[in-house]
């Protein structure tokens, strides 16, 4: 008779992820039955799945920190908030997808299950402090994304972006995995919890192992969040991937990766002195480089890609502030991620409207005259741009203010200054997008699909969200803090 340990099961903690995966499978089964070119059913299933997952999540929201499944699953507030943001992002993506996929003649109903699994992966990644689980979640997230990027099979650019993303993703996963191995070597555990004590009691050699592992894991996460110099895939992949996938990827991957990053940084806070300088350098490079590179782009998707890079830099500043002053909690970061997700996904939602006749239309000049063709979309786009710049009364403003004040509070004044400079630079290219949509006249009459209910709802929701979360900032903060 064997007595192997039976892990504790916490169905509530696993609920959201489980439901989402299950509905993904359900969608795939429907796809197997092949409803002739009609993906409506699958889309509906996905929406129901997302809603069910959200209900499961909210019913157990703020239940305190619970570890289950042999400590592999960590149910805590940071994770729950991240999951919530991920669900919002996925829902908006589903809403914008159907007309876009039709326009691009992408007949793959597999899109929706993949999207759900990708979300599930991201949720796994954000609800564990076990490095192996983080890696597993990251791979589920990424592999689904690789396929999603290449789902427009008739388009070379889409295929190319998938291949690039896959190659470089695999390359960086190698570093991540090696880092995990080193930490396992030092602590004998996969859990980040053991890091602190080992650091406190360990010898110099275990310190070396830990720091080496930390550095390599940071590389993996930096790759996912698109930090300079691990960023170069970002613009190419964002540009080549179908716009709805870009929308999802730009927000979901960051939300998940930053949740993991937060846990990593928290665990390694005692060794701050050794890595603060290089990580600060990455933050500075990311903020300045991202913004400067965005300036010289002419393609809106590439601009937004570089903008997402610079936003990752801003969030990294908050992580560093947290490492320096542990009293700074994740509220600012999650608020920033929520606002970032809403405005970026919203902007991509507007862009997805521009695709016509099976082609991507994403040049800056293609936006010209949007104001006349679809005023709501244009107004929404301007709202997102203003929010991305960080102008009040939009959410982006408060997000930046929170991070800025965190940085100052932690004594990282130079980083705060860089953040401010970056924001100023960013105004130039964000407002260029707004200008293109509102002021410039189109050269030839561009083709414009009339916005259908889905995307219209999506970006109107995003716009309302971007304003509402800044209006109700204090209830949201207390909700995050609960």
């Amino acid at each position, binding site marked *: 008779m064997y*007595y192997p340990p*039976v892990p504790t099961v916490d169905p509530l903690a696993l609920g959201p992820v489980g439901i989402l995966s299950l509905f993904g499978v359900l969608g795939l089964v429907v796809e197997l039955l092949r409803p002739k070119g009609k993906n409506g059913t699958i889309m509906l299933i996905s929406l129901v799945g997302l809603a069910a997952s959200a209900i499961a999540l909210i019913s157990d929201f703020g239940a305190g920190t619970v570890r289950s499944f042999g400590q592999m699953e960590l149910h805590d507030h940071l994770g729950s908030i991240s999951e919530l943001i991920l669900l919002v992002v996925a829902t908006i993506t589903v809403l914008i997808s159907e007309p876009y996929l039709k326009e691009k003649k992408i007949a793959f109903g597999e899109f929706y299950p993949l999207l759900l699994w990708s979300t599930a992966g991201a949720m796994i990644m954000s609800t564990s402090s076990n490095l192996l689980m983080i890696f597993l979640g990251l791979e589920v997230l990424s592999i689904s994304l690789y396929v999603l990027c290449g789902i427009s099979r008739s388009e070379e650019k889409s295929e*190319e972006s998938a291949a690039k993303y896959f190659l470089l993703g695999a390359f960086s996963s190698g570093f991540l995995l090696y880092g995990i191995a080193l930490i396992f070597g030092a602590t004998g555990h996969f859990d980040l919890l053991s890091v602190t004590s080992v650091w406190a009691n360990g010898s110099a050699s275990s310190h070396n192992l830990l720091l080496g592992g930390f550095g390599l894991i940071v590389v993996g996460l930096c790759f996912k969040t698109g930090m300079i110099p691990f960023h170069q895939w970002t613009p190419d992949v964002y540009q080549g991937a179908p716009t709805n996938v870009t929308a999802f990827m730009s927000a979901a991957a960051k939300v998940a990766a930053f949740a993991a990053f937060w846990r990593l940084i928290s665990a390694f806070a005692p060794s701050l002195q050794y890595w603060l300088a290089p990580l600060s350098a990455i933050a500075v490079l990311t903020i300045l480089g991202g913004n400067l590179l965005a300036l010289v782009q002419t393609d809106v998707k590439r601009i937004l890609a570089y903008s997402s890079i610079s936003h990752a830099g801003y969030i990294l500043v908050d992580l560093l502030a947290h490492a320096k002053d542990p009293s700074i909690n994740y509220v600012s970061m999650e608020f920033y991620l929520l606002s970032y997700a809403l405005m970026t996904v919203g902007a991509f939602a507007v862009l997805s409207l521009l695709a016509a006749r099976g082609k991507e239309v994403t040049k800056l000049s293609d936006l010209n005259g949007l104001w006349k063709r679809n005023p709501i979309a244009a107004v929404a786009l301007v709202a997102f741009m203003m929010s991305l710049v960080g102008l009040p009364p939009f959410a982006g403003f408060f997000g930046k203010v929170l991070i800025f004040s965190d940085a100052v509070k932690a004594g990282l004044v130079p980083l705060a200054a860089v953040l401010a400079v970056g924001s100023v630079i960013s105004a130039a290219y964000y407002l260029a997008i707004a200008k293109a949509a509102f002021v410039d006249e189109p050269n030839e009459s561009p083709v414009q699909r009339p916005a259908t209910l889905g995307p219209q709802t999506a970006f109107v929701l995003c716009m309302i969200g971007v304003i509402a979360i800044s209006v109700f900032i204090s209830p949201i903060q207390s909700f995050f803090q609960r």
Partner: protein
Amino acid sequence: MIVGKTLREEQGMMPKVFGQYVGILAMLLIAVIIGAVMVTGSWLFGPKKVSSYKNAAYECGVEPVGNARERFPIKFYLVGILFILFDIEVIFLWSWISIFKHATPAFQKFTFFEFITYMSTWIISYLYVIRVGAIDWDETVSLDSSKLTHMSPIQESELEPIGVTN
């Protein structure tokens, strides 16, 4: 969670660990040296009569035709990978089934549920793979027509890598 020293540290730190591997390193070194000596030796002392016949790929085989660096059909890899996937996944079951019989009922219940989950995923994936014709050599026969019709030949202009022009 391990509090205190790790296994490796308890055994007496790095130098000793290094000591364990000295033999292997020496072995590696010798192998490299021997290999290098032989290759260099034959290169230095061997006769060098070059003729086109001698330079051919197989001195006494079939005449080579075309370039060796040809593209394989991507299908080859797909079928190969699918085979490995479904083949290897069975191995995971082995370790489980070997202790399943003798384990506690609690463990059996828990892991049986896991097994069901695992297998249903496995089966659905398998059905999916067959359904979309991933293991058919010519997918145009089995892939849903709506997913094929729009596939157009690649435009020359699209062949530039992303990023070069920007």
